[in-house]
Each structure stands twice: as C-alpha cells, then as structure tokens.
C-alpha cells in the first residue's frame, strides 16, 4: 500500500556521503568496455555464493536468516559475523556479497533511512525503503556497482509484514519467500515444499531449521552457523542463533 508519492520521496534523498569505495574505473572510452566495472574474468558473486541469506513471511511477522561466516578464499576469518542488519525499529536488512560492499552499502542505507526519520518525524515505510535501496543500486550499477544481494523485511501497521528481494543488479521483487547464494537451491526447494501463507512462528522457525539442516548436509562448503532475526509489530530483533561450531570466545548473543 505504498503510495506513489512515498516512492518519489525516496529518490529525493540527499546522498549523505559520496560512496567512498575507491573502485577501479575503466577509462572513458566510447566502446563496449566502458560502463560497469564488474571484472570480466570473475563470474559475479562466485566467491560470495557461499553466503546464504534466506527469508520468509509468516502471519504478522517476517524472518530473515543468514549464515555467519566471514570467509576470504580458503580462510574463515570469523564465524559470528552478523549479516542481518537492523535497519530501524521495524526493518531488517539481510545482505550477502562482497564483504566491503556489503557493510558499506548497508550502513549507507541505514543512515539514510535514519535521516529520513529525523527529517520527517515518521519512519520510512518498508516498500519505500526497498525502493530507495533498489534505486541506489540501480544508480551505481552502470558506474561503480555494488555486489550486494539483499533481503529486506519489514513490518508496517497498515500493510503488515513484507519481504523484498533485491538483487545485485537492482532487481526488486516483493516476495513471500526468497533466498540468495548456493544455499538458495536448497532453501527455496524446502520452502516450496513446506511453505504456506500465514504460517505461525513455530511453523516458520521449523521451516527455517529444515532449510539450515538441508544446507548443512548438502552443500560441500556449508557455513556452520546461522543467525535468525524476526520483525513483527513489536519491532525488529534477533530471534536465535543456530551454531554447529562454537569457537572459544564466540558470543551467542
């Protein structure tokens, strides 16, 4: 129920900080090599397809689950990296992709969403936030693209819970269930089999656990730990962690 006027407001944001990543730019030639700076020899996101983010909408709530390993080539930096950001009181942003881009882009979105709330006295609607995020990705796409895949979940009083699937090439879909990464092959299949609209919290968490089990058992380099976050009328918050590897010093909270 996001009105057109809210969508246009999203594009009137003052860009509070020029995107700071110093990405290599191709020289300005009038040729096919001009435009997007995705490196041609790397399939986009191939390294980062190990990151699993998935989510679903239930009865008056939405869940977003993400793996929690920070990986660089063959090394696991840490296994308690929180990839689901609490955007504001009633929104969750689960992101996967290039590590630097993920943090930079999601923090940039978060600060702009907060700025909107201070300027206007009311928080941004979920649909408006999703469109704003997608707009920023689209603007950067043919100049200095972000390699970030996003699942944005939110709760609005008038609309209820909603989930938005936002691709690294700025695709936007409002969905009931979505997933990114290699894990999506398993998570989407499980959700196709067991999902129905209006699931209760117990059913939904059970389904998320089923997906996690599937990913752990069938993906060759499966991430060991997952975090599950929930957003409903009471706000956005962490729901649970699912850890199969507990490091010394890994805090479960």
């Amino acid at each position, binding site marked *: 129920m996001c009105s057109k006027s809210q969508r246009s407001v999203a594009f009137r944001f003052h860009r*509070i900080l020029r995107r700071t990543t110093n990405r290599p730019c191709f020289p300005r030639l009038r040729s096919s090599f001009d435009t997007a700076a995705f490196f041609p020899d790397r399939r986009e996101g191939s390294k980062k397809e190990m990151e699993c983010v998935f989510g679903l909408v239930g009865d008056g709530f939405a869940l977003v689950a993400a793996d929690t390993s920070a990986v660089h080539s063959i090394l696991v930096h840490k296994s308690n990296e929180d990839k689901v950001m609490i955007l504001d009181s009633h929104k969750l942003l689960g992101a996967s992709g290039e590590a630097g881009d993920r943090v930079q882009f999601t*923090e940039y979105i978060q*600060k*702009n969403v*907060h*700025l909107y709330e201070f300027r206007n006295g009311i928080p941004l609607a979920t649909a408006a936030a999703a469109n704003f995020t997608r707009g920023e990705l689209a603007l950067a796409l043919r100049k200095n693209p972000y390699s970030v895949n996003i699942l944005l979940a939110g709760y609005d009083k008038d609309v209820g819970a909603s989930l938005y699937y936002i691709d690294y090439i700025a695709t936007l879909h409002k969905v009931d269930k979505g997933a990114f990464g290699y894990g999506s092959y398993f998570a989407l299949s499980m959700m196709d089999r067991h999902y129905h609209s209006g699931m209760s919290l117990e059913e939904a968490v059970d389904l998320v656990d089923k997906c996690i089990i599937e990913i752990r058992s069938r993906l060759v380099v499966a991430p060991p730990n997952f975090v599950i976050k929930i957003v409903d009328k009471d706000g956005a918050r962490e729901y649970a962690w699912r850890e199969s590897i507990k490091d010394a010093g890994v805090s479960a909270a």
Partner: protein
Amino acid sequence: MLFVVATKHGTKQMARYDRAITVFSPDGHLFQVEYALEAVRKGNAAVGVRGTDTIVLGVEKKSTPKLQDSRSVRKIVSLDTHIALACAGLKADARVLINRARIECQSHRLTVEDPVTVEYITRYIAGLQQKYTQSGGVRPFGLSTLIVGFDPDTGVPALYQTDPSGTFSAWKANATGRNSNSMREFLEKNYKETSGQETVKLAIRALLEVVESGGKNIEIAVMTKEHGLRQLEEAEIDAIVAEIEAEKAAAEAAKKAPSRDT
C-alpha cells in the same frame, strides 16, 4: 539578500559599512552580524536548563492562529536520538541549519561509527553560521540555537548556545530570543543543580517571567539519557504551571504572615 534594517543610530558613516557582510566598520563591527542578532532578539523566547540527569528546553509559543494546525509548527526538534535543538530567530533559516545538522549527525555515524558528541555538532553548526559571515553575496543565519544532549560515551548532559556570528559556548542554563536578558537574570539568581522534575520547573519558571502563563503559550521538551527527547503535553505543562503558581502564592503568604504577627 542583505538585511535592510533601519539603524537607530545610523549616521551616514555607519550606514556605509552595513550593506555587505564582508566589510568591517572602522570601529571593528560587522554590522550585518549585529543586525542578525537583532533579528534573534525579535524572535520568540527560548530557554534551556541543564540538570544532573535531565535537560529541559522551553520555547514560547506565540498565539497560534485559529485555523493553523499547531502540530505542524514544531519549535523544538531532535537532530539525533540523543541531541535536540531549540532556536530563536528566523525559522526558515532554522530549517536549513537543522537539515544540515541532521545530515552531519548521520554522516558522522557512517564514517566513524559513533554518535556525535554535543560539542561536535555545536561546533559544526557554529562553523556553518560563521561561514556565512565570511562569504560574498550571502547573509548570516538570523538565529541563535540552544543545543542539548547527552554525550554518548560519558553520559554527561550538555547545553550549548550558538549565535549568528558563529561563536558557541557551553552553559548551565541560558535563554535567547525575546526578553532573554530578564530570563537570564532570573536564571542567574535562581539556578542550582537540579534533577528530574525540578529542572523542568526551573525552566518553566524562567519562561513564565516573560511569557503569559498557560500551557498553550509554552512548548517544553525534556531530554533524558534513557528516554531521549519527550515533548510535554499541554495538560502536563498546565499542571506544572499550576504547581508553580501555588508555590509562588504560598511563598507570598509566608512573607506576609510574619509581618501580621508583629
């Protein structure tokens, strides 16, 4: 856009130095800045009081036209979850300054992952106001601001004031706008370290010195570390005003009573 204010003591000599902001007068004045301060003195009264755990901002609400939706006129605004601002002077200028300050608060959080301290954002706003006193073709912002907040690390409450010249300083309590001198005198006489409701009462008592009493002529906002900024309802303000009046009446009665005995 320049200030065109008729100076009371405007000799032809002085008048030549007040057209452009970037021109000093022979006796070292920047007249445009001083005229901006005049604009502040004509704005509505604003007061800020710092307590040990509470900071209170109060603003005079001039009589609202009957048809105006008073909710759209917010005189005390929050810049971030822990910083609030009240101002006296040109409200349109205030909008611009507040917008820039809000952006700076978020920008600071983005770059250093820390909320701004009250001093930082005050320095930023004051710096902005100063910039417009040293540029060609612009006029100064016609407002003084009272900035309050709790420092994110130390939790210490702070109250700062800026003015059109770009100077700023920290205060225990201060007032700006119309009749600010009388309010400041009152505060100097009656200030003591307070907390909680006492701080609110002190702020309201200072405002009542210059404003007609009543909840609809005063806007009060209270900032605490736990709950952030809270605007008081008209009913609440009326209740506190009634308390203050009762205390005043009791004090008067106590003064008169001993003389009757003697």
